[in-house]
Structure formats: C-alpha cells, structure tokens
C-alpha cells in the first residue's frame, strides 16, 4: 500500500516534470504553428486591399477558388505530384535495391553518394539544371556536336523540365526509405523462389514488392505531399502558362495588388487536399497491414 502510493506520487512528479520540460516547445508551436493557421482562416474571410487586408467579412475568396479558374493550378499540382512520385519510384527502386544488395563496405559509400546531393543547397541544384538544359546549354551543345540533333531542344521552361527537376530533387527522399525496408529483406527467400521455378518477374511481384510496400508508403509521403506545394522548381524551370498552386499562392501574397484572403483560401484548400491524401494513404496502409496479417 505504502509502496503503491509512493509510486503514484513519483509518477505525478514525473508527469509534472514532463509538462515543464516540454512547455517551451508547446508554447513555441502554439504561437508559431497553430495560431498562424487560425489567422489564415480569419484572413480567408476578409476583403483584399492593394497592400494589406480590410477587416470586412467576405466570401469572395472562396467563391473565386471554386469558380474563378483556380481549379487548374490545383489540377496541375496534383498531376505534378503524381508524376514526381512515379518518377522517383521507378528510378529509386532499382537504386535502393542495388544498394541493399551491395556488400557492407560498399553500402555506406553508395549511401553517401545518394545523400550528398540531398545536402547540397536546393537552389543550387535547380540552378545547375538551368545551365544543363538551357537553349545554348550543355545538353544541347553536346547533342549538336554529336550530330544527334540539328536544332537545340527547348526543354527549359516546359512542364517536362519541371517534372525532371522535381524527380531529381525528391529522389533521395524515395531511395532512403525504400533502402531501409529492402535492406531487411531476406534475399534467400528470392533465391528459394527462383530455385522453385519462379522467374525474376514473378519473384519480384510476389516477394520483393509486397515486402517493400512500407518503404513505398513512406517514400510517397515524403515526395507526394511536398510536391503538392512546389513553388521554387516550377518558378525557376517552368513557364508562366502553367502555374502551380504554390506559385499562385505566392503571387497573391508577394505581388501587388495583393490578395491575402485569396492566398489564405487557396492555402486552406491545399491543406484540405493534403489532409485528404494523408487519410487515403493511411486507409490504404491499414488495408495493406490487415491483408498481410490475414495471409
């Protein structure tokens, strides 16, 4: 009895110290993460002004989001996020697989090679693609010297360039989670399946892929969600004919006349889209786990 009450006192004290330890972070995130979203919600119902907002209630921003041609940027961003995720998956899977099967010493070196670009400044990596793809850039010069093309290819400032650079930037985010699941994969299973007469394709679809699903989910989370809000890459290698949500939001905030209610309404719609995608992915993941437990 005495021991028990002593334990509850200790527990209470522990609980209090946990609250005290985490208080600075809780306050920080409350002030600079949660409350700012409340302000976004408030601003989305206000009236725009050239440089600021007027504190007059209005539903105009929402009306415009759903009727004023703002669905196209959402559609484009969604398409871009899908292309980027698929591109990263297709390129990332063989790479992750190759690293996972390499010997221990080589593994670390190869991983560092994947991580270095990931640590290099984003804007520099995007800029390097501008040099590479430009009208009189290195790619065109090389291809023309080799006689493969007679006219420079116009890749920079196209939607293709946007997808290409997006895949380039987000590839490590797909490779690393894929690698961490593939590394745990028992390759003797594969050999056994093939000894029993399964060919590579069959072994891949019945053994490797189901075991890699967790990595695919994690990678998709890390690529798809940020890709929905892309601004910098479309801005630097894309064109002004196809504007993505991130660009439209930024223009409404930065360019004059400003329209902050519009930017807020678009941001909240994007947030809703992200939440929806997370829910769908979570549902799919739960179904996958349930199915695996059955079989």
């Amino acid at each position, binding site marked *: 009895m005495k021991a028990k009450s002593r334990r509850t006192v200790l527990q209470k004290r522990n609980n209090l110290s*946990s609250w005290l330890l985490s208080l600075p972070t809780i306050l920080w995130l409350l002030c600079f993460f949660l409350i700012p*979203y409340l302000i976004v919600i408030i601003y989305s119902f206000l009236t725009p002004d050239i440089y600021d907002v007027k504190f007059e209630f209005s539903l105009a921003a929402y009306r415009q989001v759903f009727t004023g041609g703002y669905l196209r940027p959402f559609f484009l961003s969604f398409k871009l996020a899908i292309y980027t995720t698929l591109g990263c998956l297709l390129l990332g899977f063989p790479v992750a697989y190759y690293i996972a099967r390499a010997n221990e010493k080589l593994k670390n070196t190869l991983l560092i090679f994947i*991580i270095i*670009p990931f640590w290099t400044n984003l804007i520099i990596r995007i800029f390097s693609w501008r040099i590479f793809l430009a009208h*009189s850039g290195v790619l065109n010069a090389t291809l023309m010297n080799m006689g493969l093309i007679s006219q420079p290819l116009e890749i920079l400032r196209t939607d293709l360039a946007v997808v290409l650079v997006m895949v380039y930037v987000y590839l490590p985010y797909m490779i690393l989670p894929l690698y961490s699941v593939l590394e745990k994969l028992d390759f003797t299973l594969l050999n056994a399946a093939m000894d029993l007469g399964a060919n590579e394709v069959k072994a891949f679809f019945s053994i490797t892929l189901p075991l890699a699903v967790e990595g695919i989910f994690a990678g998709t989370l890390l690529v798809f969600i940020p890709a*929905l*809000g892309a601004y910098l890459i479309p801005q630097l290698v894309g064109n002004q004919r196809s504007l993505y949500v991130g660009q439209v939001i930024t223009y409404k905030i930065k360019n004059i006349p400003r329209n902050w209610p519009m930017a*807020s309404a678009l*941001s909240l719609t*994007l947030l809703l889209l992200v939440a929806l995608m997370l829910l769908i992915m979570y549902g799919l993941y739960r179904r996958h786990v349930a199915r695996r437990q059955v079989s």
Partner: protein
Amino acid sequence: MKVFSRNWYKGLNLTAFSLVMAFLYIPILILIIFSFNDSRIIAGWQGFTFKYYILLFQNTAIKEAFRNTMMIAMLSTLISTTLGILTALALENKRFSGRKGLLALIYTPLVIPDILMGVSLALLFNFTRVNTGMITVLIAHVTFCISYTVIVVQSRLEGFDHSLVEAAQDLGARPSYIFWKIKFPLMMPGIIAAALLAFTLSIDDFIITFFTSGRGFDTLPIYVEGTIRRGTITTINSLSTLMIAFTLFLVVITKRIRKILVSAL
C-alpha cells in the same frame, strides 16, 4: 540458363544505378566546371579562370547574405536543439499525460508542405504588425527545425541501453549526477545529429525565409534566387561551387565526429 538470367537482372540494377548517379551528379559537375569558365554566358568553354571567385569575394551583398545565413543557422540550431533535447526528455516518460497530443503537434508540421508554414507565418507577422527581418526569419527557422530535432534526439534516447542508468540508480547516484555523467554523454550523438540536421535545414531553406524575411534581409538562397531572376548570374557558379564544397566538408566532418564519439564511448 538460370545463372545467365540472374546476371541479367543484376546488370539491369547496376545500369539503373549508374544512370541515376549520372542524373544526380552531371548537373552539379557541370556547374563546378563552368565556375572556372572565362565567359560571361554559359555556352562553350572559353578557358580557365579564377576571375569569378575573386569577384565573389569583392561582392559585399554576397558577404552580407553569407553572414546572415550563418547567423540564422547557428541561432536556430542552438534554440531548436535545446528545445528538442527538453522535449525528447519529456517524451521519454511513457506515462506523460500530454504525450499523445505533443507527438501529434510535433509530427504535423512534417506532413504539411513548407509553403503553408511560410504563408501562415507571413500572415501572423502581418496581423501582429511585426517588422519582418532577422527576428522573424529566426522564429520561422526554429519553428520548422523543432520537429526534426525532437525526433532525432528522441530516437537516440529510445535506442540506448538503460541498464547503465539503472545501475547508477541502484548504486545510489544522485539524479543530477546520473543525468550529466551518464545520460547526457549517451545522448550526445543524437544531439549532434539533430544540430547538424537543423543547421543544414536552416541554410537550405528558401520558401519559408522568402515569406518571412523583409526587404534588406537576404539569406544566401534568397540572394541566389534574386540574382537568377534578375539575370545577373556571373558569380552564382562560383558561389554554388563553394557551397557544394562546404556540403562535402560537412559530410566529412560528421563522419569524423561520429567516429570520434564512437571511439570515445
């Protein structure tokens, strides 16, 4: 037959790997090579020069942007790592009544596109009429770094052997002694990893800084984007090369630090 086709499979993966490596590195290599190119425009090799490196060191705007970047990175690393350590210690207590809510608060920023944090902070600073500048950028950087530092330190705390702590408790060591002499040194690799991550995230960030920095406070990514937009890009190649060199330096340093720590423990 089987052996042959298995080699074919392996070869396919090797080919894919090599192609992806080329994809990852060719643009960066070209950038580095062209930073030594004696030509104002990108096309064609006009001869080797250090000219743009000299111009770089004479450029006061770049120097100031560099100073700003480093100052923000160091301060936000310091603050976010401290908050991360405290929070990770709080989360270590599995019976902590606010644990679930706190974890949700920490993980949510990670699954929301960066641009939304930028927009929401921009509106916060507008609503509160705070002048944007160094302080607002610092606040923003700490905000996006916290989640990462908490998670990294926490994973280290969960990973280590608690028998050492228990042994010290059984031998009657004071809690403060246990913390500073046993727990803190064991947490150190996690703390360093968290700090390095916060540092790299901070110097890399464009979008959130873009929304929270006012006119007159440029970090390097903001400066570089501005010059690309204005088309005055002569020094950007050399600046980029130096920044890549700095990245490589960080990679090597982390490996060293990890090695030293491993051998010290």
